[in-house]
């Protein structure tokens, strides 16, 4: 920097973007969450044309570009496609989760795409791609993705 700034102490202004959000889940996601909350059942929409079953649910098929009108039950059991283990308490991790936190991509039986969620009741060293896991529902459910608490290994 030029000499004119020599000896000038850099000043820092601290702030936050404080914009509260309320995202409309929309009818499609709402249907899915209500089923988790009230029935502890995982349901998914299916494309009428290509028959692909989507997890997480979405209103339209990205390939056929038509509306998904059929809903089916999918299993609460599935296979781990990949996983991730946080060892450092990264800022995005919710306050109620303690390191190490394990996330998994789980392909539920009956669905064609995999769901992102937590893996629990398992040590990081024991996690394997291809292992079978089963959903554990939270006792207190409010219609969010955390109505499923985590997926645990199926013995």
């Amino acid at each position, binding site marked *: 920097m030029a000499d004119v700034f020599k000896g000038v102490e850099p000043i820092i202004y601290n702030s936050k973007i404080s914009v509260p959000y309320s*995202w409309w889940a929309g009818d499609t996601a709402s249907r899915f969450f209500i089923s988790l909350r009230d029935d502890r059942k995982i349901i998914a929409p299916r494309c009428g044309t290509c028959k692909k079953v989507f997890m997480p649910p979405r209103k339209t098929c*990205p390939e056929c570009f038509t509306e998904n009108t059929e809903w089916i039950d999918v299993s609460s059991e599935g296979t781990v496609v990949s996983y991730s283990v946080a060892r450092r308490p990264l800022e995005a991790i919710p306050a109620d989760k303690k390191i190490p936190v394990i996330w998994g991509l789980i392909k539920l039986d009956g669905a064609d795409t995999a769901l992102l969620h937590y893996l629990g009741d398992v040590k990081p060293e024991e996690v394997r791609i291809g292992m079978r896991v089963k959903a554990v529902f939270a006792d207190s459910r409010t219609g969010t993705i955390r109505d499923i608490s985590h997926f645990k290994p199926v013995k």
Partner: protein
Amino acid sequence: MAKRVAIVGTGQTFHKSHRPDVNGQELINEAVQRALADANLKMKDINAILIGNMDHFEGINYVDCWSVDGSGGVMKPVIKITTGGTTGASLAIGGYHMVASGMFEKVLIIGWEKNSESDTTGAITTAFDPIWDRQVFAGAISGLAAEAQGYMARFGACDRDAARVSVRDRKHATNNPHAQLRKEVTLEEVLASPMLADPIHLLDVCPRTDGACAVIMANEDVAGKICSVPDWIWATAARHSYTYLGDGDWGRLTSMEKCAKEIWKKTGIKEPRKEIDVIEMYQPYSFAGLIWIEDMGIVGHGEAPQYIWDGNTDMGGELPVNPSGGVIACNPIGATGLIRCAEAAMQVMGKADARQVPDVNFAVSTGFGGCMWTDMLLHGKRKPN
């Protein structure tokens, strides 16, 4: 050689204050499906997608990546353009240049916003420089109030003149099934509505809206095969030229003046008042309807109020402004500038139904950003030279 470019299809949602039945990308999908249907094209015919919104209104980072299921962008080139309030117009301009360059034959352009999902003012305030301006600035309305005060002081206009603009646009909106607010208002109602920031009343300004708009542009090799009356883009201009609040020349929108001069010069338009048939202006509040048609060169400075009182900008008048009802009737911010472009396109293409202006040869659409920026496009029925 660069290609000439035309709009060959448009689509919009039926804009509402709240759309709880859909998430953002489902909203986008509605507009996209309508645009494809309008152009009689399929998603596989689209070569690239341009999309935009104002990030902090929806709180989603990398929206171009997030929205691919709804936008049709899976395994296509998808790019995000965002310039605040001018986003929709900047997107239209982006689509034009992408096609004109020869890189893509047909592009899909999407502007959207779900303003209901956040605190709009809270998000807008973050536009302003955190060190100098943010702590004293109170959202978009303050800048506009400063402009209105400046204009009134310089040219002797009053809030009644501005209210006449609100009355016009709200009446026009009754012809537009897509507009959010479709009830007329009277002069008295506007002037009696709560004062937001002197001299701007509640009914002088735009609402907050959830909505999406999609426009399809194609190059000259295929435009005529896709639709019988394409809307040719003759020229584009943009000026985004200030950074601190004290820099503005209150009472005149210099960015509009510069854009208009550039476009008229480039296209040989000598008397815009005579040669332009319809204007869809991004007019976020009524006073802009006075000030900015002067800066556009339609009438001289200080002459707009009388021009408008004489009915020249009403439907059936010499130069209708905002046949769609404009921004005062509907404002999904990231979409708004693109809606102006789509509405101007519909006028040229003869697809504007109950809000059609007869015999449109040239139309103008503009975008505005809360920092006194302007984007402008000239649309024409004839192919440009």
